[in-house]
C-alpha cells in the first residue's frame, strides 16, 4: 500500500484500490466454507475504537478480523475512559501501549483519525470521521459495483440521492467513483447540498427528473434529527418522501439501487424497492466483510505477497 494509514480515499492510488478489490475477491471462497476462518493474521492485534454509534461497520470489522484470526479489542465510548474526560491523544497513546498493528477508528469530528495517526505507530483505518470520510464504505461500494457490473466501471453513471451535506459516505464515494471513471450526479434538496460541491466535478440536481438516466441509484439515509424545529433542512419526512423518495415509479426495471444503511423504509426508499432483487443493499453488507478483510490484510502485509496463497 502507498500509505501506512487509510484515512481518506485520497490516501489510495488506483493501484491500491485495485489490489484491495482483487484481494477481497480472493477472500470470497473462504466465506463460502464451513469453517470460515484462515490463520493469515494470527498473532496480529487489531483495536477498534468507536467514539460514535455503529452497528454494521464495527461488527463487519470485528468479524473480518476474526475470520483472519487476528486478536481484537473493542473500545466504545460508553463505559470507557473517554467518558471520564480522557483526551483523544491520551486514549490513542494508551491503546498504542498494547502494540496493536491496526487501530480501526470512528469519531464524530473530521480529521480525528488523522490526528490519532500522529500518536501511534499502528496503522489507523478510518471507519468514519465526522461528515468527512468513510473510505472503507467506499471500497465496499466499489467492490459491490465490480461484482455486479464487472471490472469496467468506466463511464457508468451513478446518482447519489439525499442528504449530501451531512454525508461522509457521499464524500468518500464521490472520490472513489470518480477514480474508477464513473460519472457522478448529486441529487437532493438545496438545503442539503453543500455549496460549491460542483467544484468536485459532479453534476448537481434538485429533483429526480433525470434519475432514470443513471445506471445506479445510490441512496443516502435521511436522519430524523435534520427535521428538528429550527434546523430547517426539511419541512417534513413526508414531503421528503414525496419529492426525493425513491419508489417503484422512479426506478427503471433493472436499474440498480444501493444504500449504505441503515435504511428508512418509506422515507428515502420504499419498502418495495428495498426488497427488490435489483437492490444491492444486502450485497453491500456482504461485500463489507470481504472488503474489510482485504483492507486489514493489505494494511498489514502491503504489496508483498499474494493473498490467495496465504488464504
Amino acid at each position, binding site marked *: 500500500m502507498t500509505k501506512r494509514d487509510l484515512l481518506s480515499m485520497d490516501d489510495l492510488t488506483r493501484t491500491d484500490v485495485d489490489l484491495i478489490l482483487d484481494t477481497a475477491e480472493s477472500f470470497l471462497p473462504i466465506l463460502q466454507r464451513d469453517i470460515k476462518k484462515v490463520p493469515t493474521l494470527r498473532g496480529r492485534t487489531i483495536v477498534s475504537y468507536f467514539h460514535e454509534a455503529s452497528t454494521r461497520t464495527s461488527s463487519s470489522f470485528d468479524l473480518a478480523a476474526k475470520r483472519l484470526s487476528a486478536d481484537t479489542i473493542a473500545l466504545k465510548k460508553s463505559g470507557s475512559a473517554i467518558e471520564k474526560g480522557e483526551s483523544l491523544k491520551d486514549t490513542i497513546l494508551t491503546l498504542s501501549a498494547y502494540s496493536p498493528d491496526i487501530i480501526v477508528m470512528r469519531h464524530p469530528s473530521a480529521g480525528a483519525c488523522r490526528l490519532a495517526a500522529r500518536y501511534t505507530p499502528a496503522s489507523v483505518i478510518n471507519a468514519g470521521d465526522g461528515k468527512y470520510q468513510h473510505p472503507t464504505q467506499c471500497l465496499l461500494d466499489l467492490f459491490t459495483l465490480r461484482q455486479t457490473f464487472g471490472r469496467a466501471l468506466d463511464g457508468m453513471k451513478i446518482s447519489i440521492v439525499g442528504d449530501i451535506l451531512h454525508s461522509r459516505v457521499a464524500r468518500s464515494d464521490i472520490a472513489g467513483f470518480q477514480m474508477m471513471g464513473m460519472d457522478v450526479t448529486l441529487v437532493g*434538496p*438545496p*438545503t442539503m447540498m453543500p455549496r460549491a460541491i460542483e467544484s468536485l466535478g459532479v453534476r448537481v440536481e*434538485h429533483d429526480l*427528473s433525470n434519475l432514470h438516466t443513471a445506471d445506479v441509484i445510490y441512496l443516502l439515509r435521511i436522519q430524523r434529527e435534520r427535521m428538528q424545529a429550527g434546523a*430547517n*433542512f*426539511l419541512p417534513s419526512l413526508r414531503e421528503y418522501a414525496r*419529492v426525493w423518495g425513491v419508489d417503484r415509479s422512479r426506478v427503471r426495471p433493472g436499474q440498480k439501487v444501493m444504500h449504505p444503511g441503515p435504511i428508512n423504509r418509506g422515507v428515502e426508499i420504499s419498502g418495495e424497492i428495498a426488497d427488490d432483487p435489483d437492490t444491492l443493499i444486502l450485497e453491500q453488507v456482504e461485500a463489507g466483510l470481504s472488503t474489510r478483510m482485504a483492507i486489514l490484510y493489505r494494511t498489514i502485509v502491503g504489496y508483498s505477497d499474494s493473498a490467495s496463497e496465504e488464504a
Partner: protein
Amino acid sequence: MAGTTTQRLWCKRAAKADLLIKGARVVDPTTGLDEVKDVLVRRGRIAALGDDLEPPRGATVREADGCLLMPGFVDLHAHFRVPGGEDAEDLASLTAAAAAGGYVAAFGMANTDPVVDNAALLEGLAQRAQAEASVPVGFHAAVTRSLQGEQLTEMVELAAAGAVAFSDDGVPLRDADLLRKALQYASVTGRHIAVHAEDRSLTRKGVMHEGAVSARLGLGGMPSIAESIEVERALEVAAYEDARLHVCHVSTAAALEHLARFKERGVPVTAEVCPHHLTLTDEAVVTLDANVKMNPPLRPEADRAALVAALAEGLIDCVATDHAPHCADDKEVPFEEAPFGVIGLGTAFAVLYGELVSDGAIDLLTLVDRMSSAPARIAGIPQPSIRKGVEAGFCLFDPADTWTVGRHTLHSRSQNSAWLGKELRGRIILTVAAGHVVWDAGA
C-alpha cells in the same frame, strides 16, 4: 416542481360578459397602446378592438368618452382575513371591494387564523373562493408553520395546491439562516419568498415613523433603519443564494439604496410599494386617526418622493395595497392602542392617478404597468391585456367622476381607509374580471 404551472387563481362562475365599450382611451402597457378605441367583448373574451364598432345583437353598449380603459389591476399583497377574521372581511366583501377598485386578481397573505401553512387548508380556501369570490383570488402560503419562525412548511405540496408564493408577512423571518433555508427550499417549487423586512428589536414600542412628528406627538418611533437593515440582510442572503426574493411594502429611501445596488448586480429581486406610502407622509399622523396607522408606517416627504421616483423608474416593480381590514371596534380606539393596517383595494388607482399621474410624477402607461402587468409577472399569471382573443380582464375609469370614500363606496366589511370621508376625483366605473362583469357603478 419548478416549471410546472398549477392553477393559482379561483373565483365563482358567472355569466360571461357581452358588451361594447365605445370611445374610451385604451391604455395597455403590454402592447404600448394608448389610443381612443372601441372594445367589443363577446362571451367574456375581447372580440374586437377598433373604430366605430357596431354592437352585435344582445350586447350592452357603454358610451365611455373621456374614460380610461385599462388592463385590470393585480394585487400581490392583501389580507383577506379568511379564515378566522370574517367579521373584518370575507371573500365576497373583499372581491366586491377589489372589483370596485378595478382589480381583476388579488393574492392573500397567509397570516390568517389558522395560518395557511398546509395544503388541505389552501385547498379549502380555493374551494371557498369558487363559491364566494367574484374576482379571481389566490393565496400565499406561510414560510414557517403557524408563522412561528421555527419549521418550514411543506412548500412543494403547497405549491402543487396552488400557492402563489411563500411569505410570513406580518412577522419578520427570525434569522438569516431561516431565510436562507427558505430561499433554498422554495427554489425547488419555482415560487419566490416574499419578506416583511423589519427588525423588531428596533420597532418593539413603535406606533409610527421615528422622526420629528413622533417627537412632537410623544409616540413611540419605528426608525427607518428597522426596515433598511432587514432589507439589506435579505438582499445579501438572496444574492448569495441567487434566489428569488420579493420585498414587501418598501417604505424608506434607505431601503431603496440597497435595492438599487443589488438589482444592479443582477440579483433576482422584486419589490412592491403601497399607495399610502406613495401619497401620504408621517405628517398625516398629527390627526391621531387610527386609519393612518400601519406597518411599515407613513414616512417623511423625502422617503415618499424617493418611492415615487423608484416606482416610475422601475426600481420598485409594482404597487401592492397591503389591504388590511380591521373592523370599526378595533380601530375606534386611541392611536397607540389601535392595530396596524389600512384597507386599499377600493382607492388605490383613484388615489395614485389623482396624486401622481395628474401632476406628472408618473405617466399613466407606467402606472398601469406597475399595477397590472408587473405584479402579474411576479405572480406567474397571464398579464391582463386588452388584445383581441384574450379573456376580458379590464377596468374603466372616469377621471371626472367624484366620489366620497365611505361604507357604500368601499364595499369592504371594514372602513379603515386612510381616505375615509375624503372626496376623490376619478372613479372606477366598470370592471370585468375573468370575463365577468364584476363591478358596474351605473348598475
